[in-house]
């Protein structure tokens, strides 16, 4: 409230100060400061009423309150894990939250070290040598992977092969990136929820630029043919990229061991919780592609006293220096989410991460078993190993079931006329019985 009583509450000028400053500048009024030709000046009203802090909180809080209170069994690329309170409290410290990109590393050692630690954790989880310190989300990371492939591949080639089940959102983002780089995106067939390796062999040729697989797939199936897929890409001097996430990677086969050249995915599965799709583009790759990596990299160096210190590095890859020849246009990224992811991962530690992953395996199995016992439902559709989520076949129309379940307070995906998909994590594992009961009622 201090300073002046009208105008921006975050501008501290008293009327007297404003006068003094206008005098010092040599103009009579604030309006005189603006060198805007009369015809393009705006003299109208925007029509936005100012409100007190209390009023904004009440009003927007009430709007948000219109969201129904549902227990979500939703996944398909956006996953909810319990975020420890520590993550909120530490990441909300203004020194982190209100800081800028670390262009002055001498006063940004804290954030730089946290990002370096984030990168290091991804190195451990992926088995690859290099991780950047964030892209926007899994979909844009896939787009960046395609353009990386087109930059690093020895021979020509423009075919980007992706799973037939890739969600529309991811596919859509990839199409746009591919379009700018003159690449062609094609789907490869899936068989029982995983890549159809033989079909892929038939599909590929020396124009293959990038082969992309996911494990777990968007249908929650753990991909069993990663080694084969890596080998296929290798045979054609194409890149092999894997989509996953840090929780799954805590227990699943190390991507580097399966020949992955790039690992992407949503790292915000740790650190963020459900946030309407807001994510954190994970990106790790081999050292040989280092100078083609998109996004920011933090490296260790020394200060003038010889002490270890951190800095953004290899900035010549970036748009503010390389401009149209940059490896990406990314500037503002998701650094603060990466900080949260790192804190969450560190909070869990190796045992905690593995425990969490186990919950995602056993929870999904338990729910699938429960649903399978319901007359009119068979689950899981794929007789494979699942992580977090799975499909269930419904005798009755799936959209109607999903819709009726919202009335009972539960949200599941209706992915097809007779397919629903459910996702189990630590945040809803206690509600499995409730969901099974609700489904039983709904299909009865």
């Amino acid at each position, binding site marked *: 409230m201090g300073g002046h009583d009208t105008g921006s509450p975050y501008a501290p000028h008293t009327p007297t100060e404003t006068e003094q*400053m206008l005098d010092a500048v040599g103009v009579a009024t604030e309006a005189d400061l*603006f060198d805007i030709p009369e015809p393009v000046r705006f003299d109208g009203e925007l029509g*936005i009423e100012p409100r007190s802090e209390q009023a904004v909180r009440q009003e927007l809080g009430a*709007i948000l309150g219109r*969201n129904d209170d549902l227990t979500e069994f939703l996944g398909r690329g956006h996953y909810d894990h319990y975020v420890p309170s520590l993550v909120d409290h530490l990441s909300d410290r203004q020194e982190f939250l209100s800081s*800028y990109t670390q262009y002055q590393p001498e006063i940004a050692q804290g954030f730089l070290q946290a990002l370096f*630690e984030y990168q290091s954790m991804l190195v451990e989880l992926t088995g690859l040598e290099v991780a950047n310190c964030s892209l926007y989300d899994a979909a844009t990371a896939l787009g960046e992977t395609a353009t990386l492939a087109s930059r690093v591949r020895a021979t020509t080639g423009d075919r980007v092969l992706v799973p037939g089940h890739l969600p529309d959102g991811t596919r859509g983002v990839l199409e746009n990136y591919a379009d700018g780089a*003159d690449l062609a995106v094609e789907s490869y067939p899936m068989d029982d929820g995983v890549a159809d390796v033989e079909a892929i062999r038939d599909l590929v040729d020396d124009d293959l630029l990038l082969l992309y697989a996911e494990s777990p797939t968007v249908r929650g199936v753990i991909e069993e043919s990663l080694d084969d897929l890596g080998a296929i890409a290798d045979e054609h001097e194409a890149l092999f990229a894997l989509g996953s996430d840090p929780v799954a990677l805590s227990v699943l086969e190390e991507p580097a061991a399966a020949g992955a050249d790039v690992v992407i995915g949503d790292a915000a599965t740790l650190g963020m919780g459900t946030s309407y799709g807001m994510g954190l583009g994970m990106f790790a790759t081999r050292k040989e592609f280092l100078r083609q990596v998109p996004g920011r990299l933090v490296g260790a160096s020394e200060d003038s006293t010889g002490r270890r210190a951190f800095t953004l590095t290899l900035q010549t890859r970036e748009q503010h220096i390389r401009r149209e020849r940059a490896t990406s246009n990314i500037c503002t990224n*998701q650094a603060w989410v990466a900080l949260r992811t790192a804190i969450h991962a560190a909070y869990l530690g190796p045992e905690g991460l593995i425990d969490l992953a186990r919950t995602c395996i056993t929870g999904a199995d338990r729910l699938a078993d429960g649903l399978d016992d319901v007359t009119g439902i068979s689950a899981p559709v794929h007789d494979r190993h699942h992580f977090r989520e799975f499909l269930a076949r419904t005798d009755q129309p799936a959209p109607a079931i999903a819709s009726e379940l919202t009335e009972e307070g539960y949200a599941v995906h209706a992915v097809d006329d007779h397919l629903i998909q459910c996702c189990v994590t630590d945040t809803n594992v206690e509600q499995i019985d409730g969901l099974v009961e609700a489904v039983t009622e709904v299909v009865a």
Partner: protein
Amino acid sequence: GYEPLLSEKNSREVDIETPLPDDLTRDSLELPDLSEPELARHYTRLSQMNYGVESGPFPLGSCTMKYNPKFTEDLAAHPSAAVHPDRPEETVQGTLALLGRTAEYLAEIGGMDDVTLQPPAGAAGEYTGVLIAKAYHEHNGDDRSEIIVPDSAHGTNFASAALAGFDVVELPSGEDGRVDLDALEEAISDETALLMLTNPNTLGLFERDIEEIAEMVHDAGGLLYYDGANLNALLGRARPGDMGFDIMHYNVHKTFATPHGGGGPGAGPVGVVEELTDFLPEPHVRKRGGGYELFEPERSIGKVHGFQGNWLVLIKTCAYIARLGDEGLRDASAKAVLNANYLAEQIDYEVPFGPFHHEFVASAGDQDAADVAKRMLDYGVHPPTTKWPEIVDEALMTEPTEIENKRTLDQLAAAFDAVADEDRETIEAAPERTSARRIDQVSAARSPQLSWQALENSE
């Protein structure tokens, strides 16, 4: 100023045991293993080695480092905001209503007809805008290959144009630091898809000829793109839509005080004029009946984010705008411009060009601007952006924003002037009073060590 790495404090390798067959799993996982109190101290210590807006003045040019109101964080943490993007529309009416309102606010502020909130950052907004221009021309059967970008523009403009497959035509600045109309005339052709402009530009100068510029581009069949990085200068004073811009992005983490988070997340909503609304990304929000719905615009460019962008950031945007209202927004631009002008008046360094708005670019003269910045750290303030734009020698690009007042600006001026009086040895040896001294960036890039694993291997 030194804190061991998490991995140096305690690590643990744990064997993997799961219900899965062994060939699907890794053998073990080795990661830091620390207790909650240890982590609390680790990150508290790290935070103490970091400078934020609440640590002191942060006049980083072109970055609009405003104070981030705390209550917007509380709203983003509202339990009802934690919803999944695949929820049925009727169960997330609160989210859709808030998105709808945010889009309306932004459209009004920019003088645009509709706004997409999907782009997760400013550069993503640029890219979205470029895709819209591309789709528009393609829809008109007009295959245009070039985008014109002034030499003083943000690097992202060039990169975003290239990412979408365009050739970039660089436009040299005129002698007054603004667009040179002759050069523009020369650059424009029937290949011109788009002219990307920042206004006020990165020198803080308003492009006075904007109406003529718009006419030239439009006459050639091109579109005009507004880079919103400097919108804070114009809030409630002028609107890109009224100047003839067809497409614009908003940097909400600048203009609308959502925190920059050490590099993000931000959000880069994109506004367009009526003619282009059909090309907006999908899904798009609109009112229907008493509520809101999502739909796919008729000629949508598709997706620029896997879901719908940085939702939690957009809540903060909406809250900030609602808090300020017309009066507050107009005051923000007035005070931002007053502050830049006042500060420029106080410092000893030469400030070429003008009249400027929310930022100015001083010249460090025969000092090295990067050294000046390092030395300013010793005076407890964040330095300006340095060595850019290149049109000013040894540039010190300075944007105090509206959150400083005479007292803090005078302190900041004192820091500038103290350094201006210092000799070369002193500033080259700076900083002396920071948690880390001058960091060797050259060797960091020459032999990159990007993980603790790399550090361990190099030992």
